[in-house]
């Protein structure tokens, strides 16, 4: 499978096959202009390696950090990024949209 939209799942299954712990982040809702559509995936392994994207690169760092916490605790999280967010000065979407990203551990 070469399709780069499903590639994160391929990478994730390779990590699992090697016994690594993994998490999957998914864009579940967007408002206004957002760089990646609903359903976009970012796969993360315990070493912090990642595949795919949930934005143009502006929020990936924060999502990877949340994914590592989720790998650790097993707790899912719902992240919100946008200009109205408290974190906007730190991590946000330059394009002015808002996205919700769901982060879950893959058992």
């Amino acid at each position: 499978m070469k399709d780069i939209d499903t590639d994160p799942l391929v990478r994730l299954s390779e990590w699992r096959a090697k016994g690594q712990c993994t998490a999957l982040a998914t864009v579940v809702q967007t408002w206004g202009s957002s760089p990646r559509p609903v359903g976009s995936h970012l796969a993360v392994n315990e070493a912090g390696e990642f595949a795919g994207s949930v934005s143009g690169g502006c929020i990936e760092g924060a999502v990877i950090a949340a994914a590592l916490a989720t790998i650790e605790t097993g707790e899912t999280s719902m992240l919100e990024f946008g200009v109205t967010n408290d974190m906007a000065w730190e991590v946000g979407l330059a394009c002015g949209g808002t996205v919700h990203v769901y982060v879950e551990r893959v058992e």
Partner: protein
Amino acid sequence: MKSSLFDSLCEALLSKHACATVSNLATDKQCFVQSGNAGGDLELSSADIQSVEEMIAADVSGHIAKTDLFVRVYGPNYRMIIVGAVHIAQALAPMAQLAGFDVTIIDPREAFVQASRLSDVASIREWPDDGVTKLEPDLRTAIVTLTHDPKLDDPALAAALKSDAFYIGSLGSKKTHAKRIRRLTEQGFTDADLSRIHGPVGLDIGAKTPSEIAVSILGEVVTIRRLVAA
């Protein structure tokens, strides 16, 4: 996500079956839906399953209205049938694969298939009309003829026009294309049929090299898929 659910998902993706995962974002319960059947710790009503099936058919991910249910659809893949294992195909096939198309090349000429060195791409060594018909092009299929040889392109186009393919493109200059249209008209195709053929193929981006022409073709296929056929 439970490992059984992830395994079902991977299996469906590998076998190229359309499916969806459904997550209740309030409870974190999930299920996997394929062919109208749901499995997992999230129980869905028949109305919900119906909604998921409709979303799969439309290839749209999102929430089921007024619920906490998020549906991630993994739609049936789009396909591209390329007729002619020619130089442009060497660039177009991998580009189309990256863009999410399952690519099949049809060329009865063994020497061209060998020379194209497209080991990662499915190829069929058959006469193009048989090859195109066998692949059963549907609303998610693009067909591009690149041989520049009426003996090969014309039968492929005739088979393509009898299908529901969302995109049909044929390489050749305006002059070549006009001649092609005349030949196909003689075969009984109407103006409306023939207007489905994009020729000269591709967006006008001034492409010169085989890879630039591939960019212009893929650009046109994506335009038709996203802005016209959708």
